[in-house]
């Protein structure tokens, strides 16, 4: 076992004992045993303008054992803590599924009417997963730091030498393959780096194409893919690249609301797991594309602007000051590559930027009426910027989307040698 691993274990065990010592002390003092932790609910999720991250708010949850409604959760929290502790002691690397099985057993008791009842400590993994998240916020330690593993999903290549465990790995010598970002990226050590920026690609296929093309070597980039929705390890890894190696991070996704959201998860954090943002989010991450303006230019948007006074809380003139944009695709290319947006995409876009923008930008009254149910949505604050309003307004107006693969279809060379470098050099990204 590597020394960093041992160190991580020791640290996790120490924190766990320290935090749960409070319970023993409460019991010894004759007080009701109570776990106090930040509330992990949407209403206590705050977008922090200053750090530009989704964070947990100030609300705390007091989970008391004496409270009948909380007793089961209280038991589960302690049970999970004990299993994790045992795994740490025994040098194991459980997955969250392992933890579910290890902790699942029955408690039998006699009910008020004397009936013998067998109750499971937890019935489905959803329950035990939730307890793990509680423990993370209670202890202020991420699961990775407790050596809890998850499936590896993210990959990386580039001029970067790391030490993982006791092995030193050169990420520029991976052949056609790539290094799988381990579930415990905090145990990695950056040894040597020769790169100018990090390019995070949403799509695994595009990552492979760029890799084989030699993109990262040519442009001194560290190439990362999240293969879809980023997992925690990939996010943490990207964050460390940015924070510790001071490398700018560019995110390349599909040109659709889902792609935009994936970018925002890297940058801001996820809404459901806001407690991890502080460690996982990369507030400096930039959205390089593919943007709607890359596909359509800004002509469409200018036309819409002529008919409104304001949009998404910004005046016409404020929005008019946005940098002019020319499309990367010709009229005929556009015709070939764009895909019609689905209702799901449109609804997602409303969630991101708010109903008011959709209402003003969508031309078809039929589409608008289908969105009536989303009327109450006001959008996420980090998408209510002039740049994103323009992007999503064009989406609403054209009701088209574009996958990165389409850019590659125009020619891998175009994507690698023209599109990406041009956008980076020209500062043509959204922050």
């Amino acid at each position, binding site marked *: 076992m590597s020394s960093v691993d041992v160190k991580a274990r020791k640290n996790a065990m120490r924190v*766990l*004992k320290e935090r*749960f*010592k409070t*319970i*023993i002390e409460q*019991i*010894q003092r*004759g*007080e*009701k*045993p109570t776990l106090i932790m930040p509330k992990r609910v949407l209403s206590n999720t705050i977008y922090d303008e200053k750090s530009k991250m989704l964070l947990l708010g100030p609300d705390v949850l007091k989970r008391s*054992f*004496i409270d*009948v409604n909380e*007793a*089961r959760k*209280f*038991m589960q929290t*302690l*049970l999970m*803590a*004990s299993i994790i*502790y*045992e795994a740490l002691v025994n040098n194991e690397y459980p997955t969250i599924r392992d933890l579910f099985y290890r902790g699942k*057993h*029955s*408690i*039998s*008791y*006699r*009910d*008020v009417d004397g009936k*013998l009842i*067998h*109750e499971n*400590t937890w019935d489905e993994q959803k329950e035990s997963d939730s307890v793990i998240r509680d423990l993370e916020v209670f202890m202020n330690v991420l699961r990775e730091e407790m050596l809890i593993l998850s499936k590896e999903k993210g990959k990386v290549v580039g001029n970067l030498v790391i030490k993982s465990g006791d092995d030193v790995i050169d990420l520029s010598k991976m052949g056609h393959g790539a290094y799988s970002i381990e579930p415990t990226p905090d145990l990695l050590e950056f040894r040597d780096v020769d790169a100018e920026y990090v390019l995070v690609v949403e799509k695994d296929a595009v990552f492979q194409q760029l890799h084989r093309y030699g993109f990262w070597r040519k442009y001194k980039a560290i190439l990362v893919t999240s293969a879809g929705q980023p997992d925690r390890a990939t996010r943490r890894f990207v964050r460390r690249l940015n924070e510790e190696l001071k490398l700018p991070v560019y995110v390349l996704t599909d040109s659709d609301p889902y792609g935009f959201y994936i970018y925002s998860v890297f940058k801001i954090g996820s809404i459901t797991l806001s407690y991890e943002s502080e460690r996982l989010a990369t507030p400096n991450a930039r959205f390089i594309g593919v943007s709607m303006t890359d596909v359509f230019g800004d002509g469409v948007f200018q036309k819409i602007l002529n008919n409104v006074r304001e949009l998404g809380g910004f005046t016409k003139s404020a929005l008019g000051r946005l940098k002019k944009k020319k499309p990367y695709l010709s009229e005929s290319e556009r015709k070939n590559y764009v895909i019609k947006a689905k209702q799901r995409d449109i609804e997602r876009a409303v969630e991101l930027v708010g109903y008011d923008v959709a209402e003003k930008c969508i031309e078809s009254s039929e589409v608008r009426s289908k969105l009536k149910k989303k009327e109450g949505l006001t959008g996420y604050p980090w998408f209510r910027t002039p740049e994103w309003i323009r992007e999503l307004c064009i989406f609403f107006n054209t009701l088209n989307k574009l996958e990165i693969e389409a850019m590659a279809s125009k020619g891998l060379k175009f994507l690698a040698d023209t599109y990406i470098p041009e956008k980076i050099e020209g500062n043509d990204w959204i922050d």
Partner: protein
Amino acid sequence: MSSETAEKYKAISPAEFFYKYKEIAGFANPARALYQTVRELVENALDATDSHGILPDIKIVIQRADPVQEFYRVTVEDNGIGIPPDIVPNAFGRVLFSSKYVLKQTRGMYGLGVKMAVLYGQMTTGRPIEVITSKREYRRIYFFKIRIDINKNEPIVLERGSWRKQRDWHGTIVSLTIEGDWGKAKARIKEYVNRTAIVTPYANIVMYTPDNEVVFYKRVIDVMPRPPREVKPHPYGVDLEMLKMIMESSKQPTILEALVENFQSVGEVTARDLLTRAGIDPSISPSSLKEDDLLKLVNVMKTYSQYKPPSSSAISPLGTEVIKAGLNRMFEPEFVEAVTRRPSTYEGHPFIVEAGIAYGGKVPLSEPDKPTTLRYANKIPLLYDEGSDVITSVVKEDIAWENYLVSFPAPIVLLVHVCSTKVPFKGVGKESIADVPEVRREIKLAISEVARRLRGYLTAKQKEFEAQRKVVHLAKYIPEIARSIEVIFSGDGLDREILVKKIVEIISAKTGIPESKINEVLKNVEIGA
């Protein structure tokens, strides 16, 4: 059956009377007649005992009296006050035998009902009534066989005899042989005796049936309802016919004295006032009053507003103790309560409403929309016409049972007793009480009061149940929590037993649940693999 003794003086031919009224009197067919005969005899037996402060011992024997024909001999024995031998022939053998005009709550009209039975028996089987009786102070026991001379309306004593008392016995044994139908009347008779027993927990009641079955209700309480006293009528409740009879039979020389003497709440001042208002000379003889004067007087008496309210001493409520004991004896409920309302009046008649509630235990499940309701009027169970009874209306319309935490069907029995010198029966069947606003209001208040107490009980029970559930739902997790803590802090000198003990103490201190209860639950908790 009947509530008031408005005994009349005019004798009509008993045969005529019988044929005219046999449906009303309950002798329409053999089954009904058997049931009615048992009722008349049992009610008389109870009136002869508890109304005179004697704890009743009642024995009912119903036997087949003929191998071929459906003849039954019904014998009812009581330990009551007995009947003087010189009265016996008229008491059983002359229809509408009566004495003076007073009001008193009784079960049956001592006389009328049983004479109907005698007539019925005589007409269907030809057999006479047999009576054995003795009063406490007598040394002898008297024996009679009597028929009624239908044309003359006179008793015919077929046999008479007496013998020396060998033991200290008093009471009356009456035997009647009638045509009946036990098969059809069986359920009804048993229900009647059962319902009667519910309100007479101070009585030993035993019944021998033609099926050789013995039904026995053992006395469980020595307390009896206060016996009713005889009172004079209140002027509010008077009608023309009644006033006429009172005046005709009055022995007082003047109308003024007659009013004072024959009515309650009427003194000389009030009497003068009434007569002045009616424009009648106080000094004239009561028997000289003309129809016009009587009518004027009745109207004045009914509208006069200065009387004291009618006396309630003529009515005899069961009392809460008796109701509770009765419900306990029959249902062994987990909760029982009863209430006796204060006397009230309608149309010049005093009345009292009582209610009892039994819940849980052996109480059978009710119907899906209301509690099982036991209705009584003057201690007599009302078995029929439930749907048209004001008690049923109150139970269904005026009481929001869900407010009292009762959701049907529930193991709940509701007993309602209306007693009065004149129960406002609906129709001639006298099986249901009419919707009189004053009575309805009292019924509602009585039921509400017992229902409120039931709610109190159910709330407390619910609370206790919740507390117990809370104990279970906390205690079941203690071993798992202690185990988990032990895992994390193993080697820190932490003892699991002590930890469990401490947690139990904390739960007990914070919730008020005794430690013993928590430990009891803990005994059965096991952590599985």
